[in-house]
């Protein structure tokens, strides 16, 4: 406990410029249909506890924020797209009945009022901060879309991970073309913070893919052990050589040489059933949420782990949001 406490203090001291958010539910012992308490979004506080602002909701799948005002969140949820303008306290469902069970959300950094929403039957897009929505899914082979990311280097470029592979659009979603991982269920895709032309994607079959030409073409990474579902990929913003993958049976996989060699880093984790991994954007600490156990942190890239709370859950997204200081907030 003491070790965890001091580890937390170190974390808190370094975490000032970002707030650490987790999306998901406390599922242990839960039966569908019963109120899933303490589920929704969670913020790691300066006192080392998890705060749970807003409502209980069993299916908050992902979070993105408005870079102009990081207190404005967009939540991909079972009820559609939810917007909150005060860091999670008050919610408004922005979509209508025809967009259900949203799976991922991405705010366009070039035009932050433009929001993309990954849906089980395609892709939705709003150009007015969620007030109105249109479908943007022409060219998708199968519509199920698990993840969507806007390219931070090329305007109007969007990458989607779908049931039938990785699709790319160069015209803000009007037309999509298959770029890789053909017929693979893609669970995550991420763009390197060091090289915007480099992307990684992971799939249900346990294969990870890499693109070095800004998502135009993709190749399987051959050296990775093929274990089971890989759920997500995280780049360390501090160190271009460090990348982590999280998955079921794989647990945590890391590289420290830019992807030439990969290592399982599960020693110290209770199981290798990992939903999500993420790096701290400033100090490079690695985090992994273990299914219905808790969130674990590591200061040595997964060689040792310490507990960070949120016990008994399914956490589907870990996001660092720039901290909003007094006077920072954009006009409403």
């Amino acid at each position: 406990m003491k070790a965890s406490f001091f580890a937390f203090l170190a974390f808190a001291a370094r975490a000032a410029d970002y707030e650490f958010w987790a999306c998901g539910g406390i599922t242990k012992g839960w039966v569908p249909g019963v109120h899933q308490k303490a589920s929704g979004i969670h913020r790691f506080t300066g006192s080392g506890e998890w705060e749970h602002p807003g409502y209980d909701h069993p299916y908050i799948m992902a979070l993105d924020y408005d870079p102009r005002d990081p207190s404005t969140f967009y939540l991909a949820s079972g009820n559609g797209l939810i917007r909150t303008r005060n860091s999670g306290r008050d919610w408004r469902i922005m979509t209508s009945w025809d967009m259900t069970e949203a799976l991922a959300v991405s705010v366009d950094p070039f035009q932050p009022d433009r929001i993309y929403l990954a849906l089980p039957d395609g892709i939705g897009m709003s150009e007015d901060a969620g007030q109105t929505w249109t479908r943007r899914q022409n060219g998708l082979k199968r519509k199920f879309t698990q993840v969507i990311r806007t390219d931070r280097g090329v305007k109007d470029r969007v990458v989607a991970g779908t049931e039938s592979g990785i699709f790319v659009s160069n015209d803000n979603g009007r037309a999509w073309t298959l770029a890789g991982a053909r017929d693979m269920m893609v669970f995550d895709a991420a763009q390197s913070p060091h090289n915007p032309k480099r992307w990684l994607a992971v799939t249900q079959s346990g294969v990870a893919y890499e693109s070095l030409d800004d998502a135009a073409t993709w190749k399987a990474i051959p050296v990775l052990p093929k274990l089971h579902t890989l759920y997500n990929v995280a780049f360390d913003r501090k160190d271009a050589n460090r990348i982590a993958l999280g998955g079921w049976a794989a647990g945590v996989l890391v590289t420290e040489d830019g992807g030439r060699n990969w290592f399982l880093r599960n020693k110290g984790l209770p199981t290798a059933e990992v939903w999500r991994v993420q790096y701290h954007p400033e100090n490079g600490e690695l985090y992994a949420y273990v299914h219905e156990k808790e969130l674990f942190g590591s200061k040595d890239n997964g060689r040792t782990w310490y507990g960070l709370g949120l016990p008994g859950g399914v956490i589907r997204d870990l996001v660092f949001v720039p901290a909003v200081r007094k006077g920072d907030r954009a006009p409403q």
Partner: protein
Amino acid sequence: MKAIFAVLLIGAAVAGAQSTFEERKMRLIRYHAGPNPQTNPKYGHLAAIASKLWLRQDAEWCSQRLRELLKDPSGDMFWMFAVTAIRYVDRGQLTEEARVDLRKAWKTYFPYRGDTENHWLLYYTSLYLSSQIEPGASWFTGKTSKENMQEAGDYIRSWIDLTLDKGQGEYDCTHYLGVYLLPLSYLAAWSEDADLKQRAKMMTEYITADFAAESLNGIFVGSHARTDDRQVLEKSWGVSSEFAWLFFNQGNLDMPIHSSYSLYYSLASAQEPHEALKGIATDRSKPYVHRERKRTRNRWRYNDEKNGKVYKTTYMSANYAVGSDQGGVLQPIQQHSWDVTWAVPNSRGVHNTLFTTHPYSSGYELQMYFTPMPDYFLDEVLRSKKTYDSPDKWIGGSPFEKIMQDLDTVIALYDIPPGTRFPHIHGFFSKDLAKLEEDKSGWIFVQGGDAYIAYFPLAPYEWKKMENGGRELFSPHLKNGAIVQAANASEFASFAEFQAKIKSLRLTQTVSPTPSVDFQSLRGHRLQFTYGKAPLVDSKPIDYEHWPMFDSPFLEGEPGTRRLEMRYGRMRHVLDFNNLTVQDSIQ
């Protein structure tokens, strides 16, 4: 609780066979209201509050109990529909404090919208009506009452249109029938929008007609999108049978009432079925074939078409029914594709059914119909659907089962790939069969009630004794199948004559390389069916392309017309959703 049952039993005797709809409705409401006066403020669910308010009883207790229950809302749309009813049957009885708490709960509790049609219809109906009665309130949605009503009304209309055009998604559910009739009853009673009110009234009749045509002594027969482990065997143990009692005075209610859906229906529109529907539900003097078109639930993955087509056939007679779909995974977890159900005078505790299934369980099925991530979801499903991953289960569709039906003959074929989880098929042979004889010809002959049933297994099998007293026909052969022919006992002088007749019918069958059957049915038709190929009746392929929305002597509706004609005797009752008219005539 015992006292409640005693009241119920006495009520049953009083209500009796000649009871009116109004009497049965009142019996339901009084049952749910519970003891009178209510003295324990810690006892009573939302259904009791709603019932008492409707009866104008114990208003003070209702307010106290409601405030207690509103401290910890749970149940999402199932909470929403209950408190919506309470708000509408309040009629000035609740205290202002209770109403304030209710308004507050709508703002502080965030119900999940759910993942299937009954969830959405309940959610949006409740949101619509609650917003209508509280125009200035704040909501968990963050939207205004007007915005809520716009969104909800759009959904409800879209669901009606989709159902009229492609058939119901959660079709013909033994249990979930109630959660469609309930919201429609609410809208028919409480919507201030005349258009929506009329649509709801007509859809209530539409759904009721759908049930009536496949009701055998108050039991919902034929294939079901959803049933459950108990109801698939004890077929009267369903909410649908509660509605059969309320609507048609069929079956009986000498049971614990295990849902509140018929209650909430009764508290709102309490629409009594048209006389034609009563006839359709109860008159089995002439056998008939009933066909219907339905659709699958939303298929998120592995399919190009979001809502696949479902083709249902049900043969109805006084003594038995034979029903089927075309096989495959048409719904997740709780599908029931085919069976023979025989009529019994009192079906409580009786397993009056015979069928075969391939118990199928897979992430493929779950990911097809649900969105959560794969590895954990099976565990989540098992928390509420405990038998889903059991080799002994009796519900669920299989992608390796194909079915054809002609009149009262069903052929089910199986071609299960090696390595499939649960590599066997099994047949349910009830404890309530009067006779069961295995013939050296390969046929198994049984009698259930006044129905004779012949069952021909395509592959070797063994019998396993079941805890419920019946026998399980267990066959571990991956290429497999069954031919089932039902008949009225009265058609034959004896069981032996039935057997002789069946054995005289021409039959060729094989399981290699693919299960295939060529059978001359008892009704004189040549049925040819090879796994994976279109079934033939008298050398003509069954015409799925032009399958009707409804087709039987009682119901007729063609795709694309949004029109349903109900016929009974000389009565004609026509729902025309194009102009929202209902026409009655005598032919």
